[in-house]
């Protein structure tokens, strides 16, 4: 089995190397021989996918067959591991996850090479660049992190098992989503670099990659949020974002990717920010690679990191090389990237995009800076310091609030120039609405002047309301115009409006989703928690709930043994649910794991949007009593609802635009003026 896998990986390396070298040679020539060579390079790229797929399938089959002669399977699986998690073995260790990276890249390359007729020359450049990235990963897989290494000596009877933290349904989805995002940015990167190298005229490369970029961004968004939800549902500390270096690593390309999605519109519509867009997509790809490096090098301690290994050096060399190539072509071909238009007013959509990009990049820089500052500190001061949540919350949150302000303001500004009258007209309803929200918060007891976290929470609520009201007013305004022209009712008109410009209105829906996510985050200062040893019948009061310990029980299955607490939850004297927080002991790995239980309160009260979050922490060794910790986390469900709305907005933004509706009311026709006549 391992020999088939090893052979497949070697074959893939040979094919992708050929695809890269032959493709490169073909691009240098312009004769018929070069064209034929280019075609063989394209086909070798397609065949690479088949070879990497074979290697991936072999590893998964080995996991299902409990083939512990393969060291990777021994270290990451065991006989009694459920089937879904055996599939997840593919990405749960260093070598397997690199194989998965390579497989996804080969998959993206496969689709790209099949669609080459869109623009053969540009696609040939992109194909060569993707092949170069593929070669890098296959080199690592063959020579530094081989997933098919075999066990020496007598074969073990069972494996070490999968890390308990990964034995959760979301772990079967979260890494693939995140990887689809990370790897997917290779495609727009390849097109951008290709277009720069060949001095591709116009903005067609942006049109070609627009959907790739949005799909990739969507995957990364889902991946990041699923990671947050996994942390919330599995780690049991009651939070969803710990500013861990690896969490940060996933957020950084998301931020630059978001900046790119916005600024690229400037290039499409006004022929501006060409150098900037190139730099942004290069940065996004490099930050994706940096994230992969951070997880694998051991350079920064993180709860997510794989075992330390030497492959960090490989990544550093590759990142350095990529940076050098990108910088060289940016400088060498800078004349090709000159802006075509001038800015006509400071109060314009162009300015708002520029500042939006600036703020996104400042947040990105802050995260990068905070992530690497411990290394810098060790270098300068001789000792590491911790850069944890207090730093990021203090520095990134104010900038993120400014960003939220621009999210609200930007859509109301016109391209080129916005008049004061139109600003007043467009802002009136959203501004009044958001100020009213702030007033209501103060009226109901939130004192923003008492504590910075309350201040930020209030500001976030006001600005989220501003974003929401802006989106509503944009839909209403456009809908009314169409309704007036076509005679449709307002709802149909707004739907038609959406369908006529899915990208714009899908984007607004994404903005609305972001506002909801912010609302979810702003509940954090108001979290409550109570920890108590609980004997039978003992109570925990966490307003408005009372938790009563009914009993404890145990269970056992081949994979793990577990202890449960049976907690009845009362509200207003009435039992509303029973919760079963759990602690497991995984037999193969010998590791314990707590599994909190979460009760979203809107099940029984639509307007109390909070999570009751109960953790079985273990037993007090002295008294033998179980320790239960209860959290009440207000507003958290909005984060996940916001994500669903963001994904919905992204998907609808991918739908092709519909044709404009015909006006039913005939417009008065005038005779055309005699323009230019009589001079």
């Amino acid at each position, binding site marked *: 089995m391992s020999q088939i896998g090893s052979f497949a990986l070697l074959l893939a390396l040979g094919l992708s190397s050929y695809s890269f070298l032959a493709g490169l040679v073909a691009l240098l020539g312009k004769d018929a021989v070069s064209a034929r060579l280019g075609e063989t390079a394209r086909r070798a790229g397609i065949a690479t996918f088949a070879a990497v797929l074979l290697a991936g399938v072999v590893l998964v089959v080995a996991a299902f067959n409990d083939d512990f002669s393969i060291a990777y399977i021994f270290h990451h699986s065991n006989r009694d591991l459920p089937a879904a998690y055996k599939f997840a073995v593919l990405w749960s260790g260093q070598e397997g996850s690199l194989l998965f990276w390579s497989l996804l890249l080969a998959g993206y390359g496969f689709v790209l090479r099949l669609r080459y007729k869109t623009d053969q020359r540009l696609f040939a450049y992109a194909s060569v660049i993707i092949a170069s990235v593929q070669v890098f990963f296959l080199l690592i897989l063959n020579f530094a992190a081989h997933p098919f290494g075999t066990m020496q000596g007598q074969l073990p009877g069972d494996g070490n098992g999968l890390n308990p933290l990964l034995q959760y349904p979301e772990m079967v989805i979260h890494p693939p989503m995140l990887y689809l995002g990370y790897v997917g940015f290779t495609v727009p990167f390849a097109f951008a670099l290709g277009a720069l190298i060949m001095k591709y005229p116009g903005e067609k490369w942006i049109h070609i990659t627009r959907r790739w970029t949005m799909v990739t961004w969507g995957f990364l968004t889902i991946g990041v949020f699923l990671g947050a939800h996994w942390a919330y549902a599995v780690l*049991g*500390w*009651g*939070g969803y974002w*710990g500013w*861990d270096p690896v969490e940060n690593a996933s957020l950084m390309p998301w931020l630059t990717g978001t900046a790119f999605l916005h600024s690229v519109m400037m290039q499409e*519509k006004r022929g501006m920010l060409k150098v900037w867009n190139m730099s942004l997509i290069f940065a996004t790809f490099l930050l994706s690679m940096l994230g992969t490096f951070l997880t694998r090098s051991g350079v920064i301690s*993180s*709860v997510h990191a794989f075992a330390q290994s030497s492959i960090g050096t490989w990544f550093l060399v590759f990142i350095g090389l990529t940076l050098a190539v990108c910088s060289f072509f940016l400088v060498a071909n800078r004349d090709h990237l000159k*802006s075509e238009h*001038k*800015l*006509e007013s400071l109060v314009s959509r162009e300015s708002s995009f*520029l*500042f939006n990009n*600036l703020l996104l*990049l*400042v947040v990105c*820089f802050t995260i990068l*800076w905070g992530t690497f*500052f411990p290394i810098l*500190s060790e270098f300068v*001061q001789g*000792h*590491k*310091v*911790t*850069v*944890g*949540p*207090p*730093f990021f919350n203090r*520095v990134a949150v104010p*900038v993120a609030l400014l960003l939220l302000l621009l999210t609200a303001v930007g859509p109301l500004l016109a391209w080129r120039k916005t008049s004061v009258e139109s600003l007043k007209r467009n802002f009136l309803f959203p501004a009044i609405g958001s100020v009213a*929200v702030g007033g209501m*918060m103060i009226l*109901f*007891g*939130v*004192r923003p002047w*008492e504590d910075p976290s309350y201040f930020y929470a209030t500001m976030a609520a006001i600005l989220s309301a501003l974003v929401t009201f802006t989106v509503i007013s944009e839909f209403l305004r456009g809908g009314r115009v169409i309704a007036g022209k076509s005679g449709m009712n307002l709802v149909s008109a707004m739907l038609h409006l959406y369908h006529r*410009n899915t990208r714009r209105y899908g984007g607004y829906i994404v903005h609305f989703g972001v506002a909801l996510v912010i609302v979810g985050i702003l509940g954090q200062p*108001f979290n409550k928690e109570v920890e108590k040893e609980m004997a039978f019948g003992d109570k925990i009061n966490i*307003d*408005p709930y009372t938790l009563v310990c009914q009993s404890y029980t145990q269970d056992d299955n081949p994979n793990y043994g577990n202890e449960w607490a049976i907690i009845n939850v009362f509200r*207003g004297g009435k039992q509303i649910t029973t919760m079963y927080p759990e*602690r497991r002991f995984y037999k193969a790995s010998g590791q314990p*794991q*707590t599994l909190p239980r979460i009760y979203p309160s809107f099940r029984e*009260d*639509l*307007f*109390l*949007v*909070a999570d009751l979050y109960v953790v079985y*922490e*273990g037993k007090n060794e002295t008294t033998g009593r179980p320790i239960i*910790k209860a959290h*009440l986390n207000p*507003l958290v469900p909005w984060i996940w609802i916001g994500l669903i709305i963001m994904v919905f907005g992204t998907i609808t933004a991918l739908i092709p635009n519909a044709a404009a509706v015909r006006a039913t009311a005939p417009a008065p026709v005038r005779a055309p003026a005699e323009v230019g006549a009589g001079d």
Partner: protein
Amino acid sequence: MGSILSRLRKKSVLRLFLGGAALQRCDNNPLANAASAAEVAPSPRRWLQAAALAFAVFAFLGAGDTDARFKDLGHRMMCTCGCGQVLLECNHVGCQASDKMRGELSAAIDKGGSNNDDLILQGFVQEYGPTVIAAPTATGFNRVAWIMPFLVLALGIALAVYIVRSWKSRPTPALTDGIAIPHGHELDQFRAQARKETDV
């Protein structure tokens, strides 16, 4: 539909956004608990309760100072067990480090007024090393950690303003004698540009 509307009338719309958050801020406070216990009360009572709550928050401001200090300091330190979490958020099963540290923190706070927050943190640094503090201190080289993001923001704003100004001052194409009327392909290009810029 009718029942939803009547439900809507019974509840404060604010809770849609706050999730009862305002009520949770004073969880040590008996008045607040009394106010929040009556979740399903009709609308006028809710307003009264909200007013009582607002008063209670104001009146009992500063109550539970020790708890607040414990919470604040506990969130400014990291657990040293290797979990990488803030001290009060470590839920590492059977974590010896966080239990010990929490005990030490409580004892330090109980010592009283002369033992201020900075001294308490200093004590932990001496015992556990500088990585126990969850964020860089505002001293020495660590200041750079705090300054740099805002410096980059300021430089970025200055650069953006400069770029916008330079874009604005770009020369517009000079008018030639007489206006050339676009026709055919040239006119199509203008139309395409107009469509791009107006999003229709």
